[in-house]
């Protein structure tokens, strides 16, 4: 069996709050093979962004392991981590705050090279690389001296992409890279992400709340609810046979322009998301679930019910 590029084992991230422990990410086990995309879907506050940041060690992990090519990177020293960042990068949600407003595009895009490779590149090599990546990301060369505020949202997101891609990483965490963009621009960026993946053999972890987008770009999809993974499967499988009641509710709530879907049966979970601080054991979705049983409030476990289809629901025991 081949080693996945990125893997987490029992990853936990809790935040200390005045009210108690906030369970942001709880016992997440995921595998991302090389050249594949894992989509992570969930509603705001479900811990999907925290998960992405934890994998990149942008936030300290409470317990568990993050393996990159089979090696646990959580024990790496600062210098080792610097080497690690040549392989893993992140693209951020907000194209406005993700770029330092005081730097020109050239400086923004070349800074990762300077930081991670020191001065090993000469000026011409550096220019070449910056120009190449700008071209690849659809930024005209004449923009090199522009500042972020002179660009529109879509172009800024391209700069964010170029900055992450310029050091040729193997794995990129995309944290809602298109949710702040207009639909026509969103399509451009999604196409660009997919082209880059094809050309460079990248792996993505694509975090989003938009199920249509995640269906378009992912190979595998993990659905999160309040820090827990509730379902994980190949994308076709997940959209064809959603098993977890929460997944069903999510899928049926997607508004569609297809008029024939207008009168579909909708599963609406009742009530609201409960507090993630000191949550009760068992399935987090239990208080809103129409099929709740006693067992749900006692135990949570992600089980494989079909090849490659994992679900954390006691209905499928």
């Amino acid at each position: 069996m081949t080693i996945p590029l990125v893997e987490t084992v029992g990853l936990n991230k809790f935040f200390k709050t005045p009210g108690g422990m906030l369970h942001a990410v709880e016992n997440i086990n995921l595998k991302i093979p090389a050249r594949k995309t894992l989509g992570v879907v969930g509603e705001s506050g479900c811990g999907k962004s925290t998960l992405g940041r934890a994998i990149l060690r942008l936030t300290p992990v409470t317990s568990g392991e993050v393996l990159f090519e089979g090696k646990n990177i959580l024990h790496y020293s600062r210098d080792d981590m610097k080497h690690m960042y040549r392989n893993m990068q992140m693209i951020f949600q907000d194209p406005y705050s993700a770029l330092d407003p005081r730097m020109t595009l050239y400086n923004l895009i070349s800074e990762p090279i300077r930081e991670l490779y020191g001065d090993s590149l000469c000026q011409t090599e550096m220019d070449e690389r910056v120009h190449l990546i700008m071209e690849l990301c659809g930024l005209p060369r004449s923009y090199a001296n522009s500042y972020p505020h002179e660009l529109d949202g879509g172009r800024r997101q391209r700069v964010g992409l170029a900055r992450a891609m310029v050091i040729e990483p193997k794995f990129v965490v995309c944290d809602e890279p298109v949710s702040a963009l207009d639909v026509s621009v969103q399509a451009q960026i999604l196409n660009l992400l997919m082209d880059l993946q094809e050309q460079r053999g990248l792996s993505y972890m694509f975090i989003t709340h938009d199920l249509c987008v995640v269906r378009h770009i992912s190979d595998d999809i993990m659905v999160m609810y309040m820090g827990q993974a509730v379902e994980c499967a190949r994308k076709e499988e997940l959209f064809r046979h959603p098993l977890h009641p929460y997944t069903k509710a999510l899928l049926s709530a997607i508004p569609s322009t297809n008029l024939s879907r207008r009168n579909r049966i909708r599963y609406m979970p009742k009530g609201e998301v409960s507090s993630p601080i000191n949550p009760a054991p068992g399935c987090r979705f239990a208080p809103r679930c129409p099929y709740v049983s006693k067992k749900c409030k006692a135990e949570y476990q992600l089980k494989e019910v079909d090849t490659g289809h994992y679900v954390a629901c006691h209905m499928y025991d």
Partner: protein
Amino acid sequence: MAQDIKLNLEEILLDISDLHVQYNTDDATIFALNGFNLQVRRGEKLGLVGETGAGKTTMALSVLRLLPDKIGKVTAGRILYGGDDLLEQTEAYMLGLRGRRISMIFQDPMTSLNPIVAVGDQIMEVLDLHAPYMSRYEKNERVDRILSMVGIPPARKMEFPYQFSGGMKQRIVIAMALIAEPELLLADEPTTALDVTMQAQILDMMSRLKQEFNTSVVLITHDLGVVAEFCDRVAVVYAGKVVEQGAVEQVFARVRNHPYTVGLLNCIPDLESTAARLIPIPGQMADPTRLSPGCAFADRCVHCMDICRRKPPKMYEQDGHWILCHLFKERED
């Protein structure tokens, strides 16, 4: 026939015709609305779709006459509301109109509520302003009723905004907008800040409330899916102009559409399609500081003809579904 026309006239609640609005900043003049035409009928749910900067919010602010002072200016056009031209009314008249006959909901529920006033009191304040003749008891009754209608236990009305989740805050904002039973509700991206399941709940609730009060709703959004599911009619806005308007069934049937609408429909990833690539609309949003003499969408249009750059297109209409594009004019000829 004459009676027919009269009936039609009565039906229309808000009639915006040829509205031009511009923002004068130190740097440039931004042409936000350029000949904006829109009719809203009594009791209907109209979806106003367009991208950032298309002029959707400007239209709502113009109707309420809340454009930023000194910067935003209406340069031409009429806004007929129940037969009166709102642009000619006094400020006192507008004060009585806002919140009473026309309400607005803003995108961000977090900033629409005063954090240090109990939610019940905030809703009550609308009644204090617009129904001062009511007794305290009556007002309390009304607040309790509207809260339970939006799905918030009236017992929680003494609580403060921070004690509610995002979805619940948006319900409270909607309750505030509807307590005076307005004839028209302008909802500016009311569900954009919310998650899909919460969005479905809020839209359902708004549908039910609309039935109850027979309020007309203008839903401003960038999400075509939401419009297709929630609205009766849809108007597509591009560069300060409504380029297509019609019943949801007509527009989303995808038989005859403005090229911009086609582009929008094509570039959202769909739940059924298996296409590997999306088809983005080429180019960038039209520059709002420069007006083109022809069709503003010409530069990005795949069907662009010579005439498109020279002359603004005329309206092509069929069964109340109208499109602003030379493409259809040509075919008619």
